[in-house]
């Protein structure tokens, strides 16, 4: 046993300054991990109070105004301060240079600036929300947000504006890094799909976020100067706000889910010991989702008053964007065929993702169907749909990635028993929370309601029960992962025996990642043929 202490990125320098002024992408990833976890639990807390209120048809936990603030804060916190950064800022920051054989990102100081903008934007927004409140929903529709709400709209949109720059700088960093800093021999079509996913996500971030920034800025201008940019009473067009808002916010959902898809490809290949089925289609599907995702924003506006013809165009395009997602689900499934599958926790999360994303994605087809959408838009059906994708999909992908790369990031293994147990709890709790909401939505229960007709109560009670289980389920990994930092088994450089450059360096990696620049000679997921006990083997 090597008793001398090797220098890794965690022990290369101690003290707050070495962390708060770091330019090491791995340390910045840890800074993000801590801050994102904080915002996740804050956003989750808001949701728990909402679900508590929804146990009964009357308002008996909070007032109407407070409830409106809760759902607004829940949406803003979860989307902007958890989901959008999550995988890119934590796993992407940590892994992109490692996976492509680079020493750091292209612009390490810009990376640190990204984190500070995130923290500043996050704290600013949180304080604004908790002091003056925000009751516009995360969607800020006008003229309510610009002329009627008496809450802290301007500080909150300012905080989100600042966060937008954090996001843009991360995306910019990834794009340049992936283009310019790949190891010798690492051509585009040898890249792991995680990198393709980060790249596509970064392109979306860079193109879409500025539009949100300007939209929120114009909203602020209208509110301060009382002019009619979006307020019809003053000559403005509220639909213009909606078009501009959704032009970002629809691609934003792909920002939130594409990285998870990248993670799932890594997990499925490693734990079935096989190449991904249809690598080119998988990479192509990622890029297609990113591109097509920019063309469908109007499907959030089918009943908004936009023209019927616009509705039809957006509906048709929305079906197009569903197809590459379907292809990905089929290809992951096909990757398992004739694999050699071991059921470690990360794979359980991958299964969770595939199953729940399938359901969420298929319900997207319901929403793209114009006539059905007229009935279910603005109801709990939509709430269920996007939570299936975002929680059942994106968060499961995030947790799967955290568990998969935990040994690389920390050098420790977590307790597998507890990990499997909490994955199961999360799966059960999640479905109990959100499946009843599909039924509630089709029944007609609108969203953003804290009171409702009594016949909706049973389904709401089921949903709240599920939410409680979900809440407990998230606390368990928080506990055993932290515990593993001290007591976890030491992981070697490659505890999973996975392919990929990140596993060719120690766990945790040294500050400069690689002692020697790796040279790449083969494609991703080059697992050796699988030998069965009978001696026959598969080739690939």
């Amino acid at each position, binding site marked *: 046993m090597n008793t001398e202490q090797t220098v890794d990125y965690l022990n290369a320098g101690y003290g707050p300054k070495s962390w708060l002024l770091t330019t090491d992408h791995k340390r910045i990833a840890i800074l993000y991990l801590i801050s994102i976890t904080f915002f996740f639990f804050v956003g989750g807390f808001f949701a728990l109070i909402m679900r508590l209120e929804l146990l*009964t048809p009357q308002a008996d936990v909070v007032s*109407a105004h407070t*409830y409106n603030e809760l759902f607004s804060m829940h949406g803003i916190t979860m989307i902007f301060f958890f989901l959008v950064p999550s995988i890119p800022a934590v796993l992407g920051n940590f892994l992109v240079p490692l996976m492509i054989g680079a020493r750091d990102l292209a612009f390490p100081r810009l990376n640190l600036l990204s984190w500070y903008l995130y923290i500043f934007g996050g704290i600013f927004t949180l304080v604004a929300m908790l002091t003056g409140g925000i*009751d516009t929903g995360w*969607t800020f*529709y006008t*003229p*309510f947000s610009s*002329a009627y709400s008496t809450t802290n709209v301007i500080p909150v949109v300012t905080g989100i504006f600042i966060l937008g720059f954090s996001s843009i700088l991360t995306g910019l960093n990834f794009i340049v890094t992936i283009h310019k800093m790949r190891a010798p021999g690492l051509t585009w079509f040898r890249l792991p799909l995680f990198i393709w996913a980060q790249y596509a996500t970064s392109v979306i971030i860079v193109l879409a976020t500025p539009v949100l920034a300007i939209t929120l800025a114009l909203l602020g201008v209208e509110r301060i100067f009382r002019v009619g940019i979006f307020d*019809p009473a003053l000559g403005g067009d*509220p*639909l213009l706000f909606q078009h501009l808002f959704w032009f970002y916010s629809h691609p934003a959902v792909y920002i939130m889910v594409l990285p998870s898809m990248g993670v799932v490809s890594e997990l499925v290949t490693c734990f079935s010991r096989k190449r991904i*089925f249809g690598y080119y*289609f998988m990479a192509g599907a990622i890029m297609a989702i990113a591109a097509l995702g920019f063309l469908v924003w109007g499907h959030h506006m089918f*009943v908004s*008053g936009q023209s*019927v013809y616009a509705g*039809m165009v957006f*509906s*048709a395009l929305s*079906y197009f964007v569903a197809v590459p997602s*379907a*292809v990905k*689900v089929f290809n992951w499934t096909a990757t*398992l065929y*004739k*694999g050699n*599958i071991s*059921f470690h926790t990360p794979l359980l999360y991958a*299964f969770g993702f*595939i*199953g729940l994303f399938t*359901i969420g994605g*298929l*319900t997207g*087809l319901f929403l793209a*169907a114009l*006539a*059905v959408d*007229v*009935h279910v*838009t*603005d109801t709990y059906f939509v709430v269920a749909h996007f939570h299936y994708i975002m929680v059942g999909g994106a968060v499961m992908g995030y947790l799967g990635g955290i568990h998969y790369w935990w040994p690389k990031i920390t050098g420790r293994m977590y307790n597998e028993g507890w990990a499997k147990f909490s994955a199961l709890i999360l799966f059960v709790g999640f479905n109990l929370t959100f499946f009843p909401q599909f*039924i509630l939505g089709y*029944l007609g229960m609108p*969203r*953003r*309601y804290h009171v*409702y007709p009594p*016949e909706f*109560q049973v*389904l709401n009670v089921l949903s709240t029960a599920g939410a409680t289980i979900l809440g407990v389920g998230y606390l368990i990994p928080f506990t055993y992962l932290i515990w593993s930092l001290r007591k976890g088994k030491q992981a070697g450089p490659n505890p999973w025996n996975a392919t990929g450059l990140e596993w060719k360096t120690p766990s945790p990696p040294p500050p400069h990642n690689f002692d020697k620049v790796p040279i790449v000679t083969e494609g991703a997921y080059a697992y050796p*043929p699988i*030998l*069965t*006990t*009978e001696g*026959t*083997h598969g080739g*690939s």
Partner: protein
Amino acid sequence: MIPLLSSFPLFPVEASQQARQVDTLYIALVIIATFFTAIIFISLAFFAVRYRKGSKASRVLLHPENLKLEITWTAIPLVISAGIFLWSAKLYFDEHVPPANSIEIYVVAKQWMWKIEHPQGNREINELHIPVGIPVKLIMTSQDVIHSFYVPAFRVKQDVLPDRYTTEWFLPTKIGEYHLFCAEYCGTGHASMRGTVYVMDPSDYQQWLAGKTHEVPMATTGEELFQHFACNTCHQENDMGRGPSLYGIYGSTVHLNDGSTVIADQSYIRNSIDDPGGQVVAGYRPIMPTFKQQVSPDQVDQLIEYIKSLRPPEKVAKGMKQ
């Protein structure tokens, strides 16, 4: 206080013609979604068991890549999607073409109530009485923020916007009482902005209409407003005033001074009252002042009904699809 199982529905009642059509499409989608979900779940489970580490199943992979398979399972979702799209688009399009014999009822939404006015003059707050079997077209506007008029039993919903009109129509097929919800978040009272739609037997509906005594038809109130706001000083029947005559104008094609034409529907009338300089009739000067601050949305609706009624006997109404 959990209610009895018998009183908790899992599927909404079908109370309109559209409801049945939408439900059919919905059930088809449920079947397709269940089918594909089942395929994926079963495949995952089957592969997970059969190819688990240490199992004896053969891992000989003859075709690690299979272009035909990939193209097939790209094409099939595409075809299914196209089918769903066409079906649903047709339904959606029909939902936006109200029948010519629709009863027109005006809705003005405000934080946080629904104000409804029948052409006969009956007014309701948070209630809508309509006869079964006759199509109803709602002409809706908001006094403040965006709301949305949603009747789940009819499967129809339409956002209601300030400073413009949106419409929705439905054909009630079942007598009963149905929830009306506001479905676009509109502030503190959003969840309380609810009401009831009463679908009645046609004779009961007629009784209800006549039942409220001294109900003044909207067109009559509109005529009073037309005089009260002195519209009649410029808009005279014989076209001798400073403004064009409004007789027979509703539904006709109007020529504007920039060469374009516009149909004189409710939006045109409303825009002419709120922002007359924006659309000036050809041959007239832009001297009409704005009445936006003086005329409320309810009053605009009444003026529209009045103007609609101005059809000189010899003029044939130039049909406009409403």
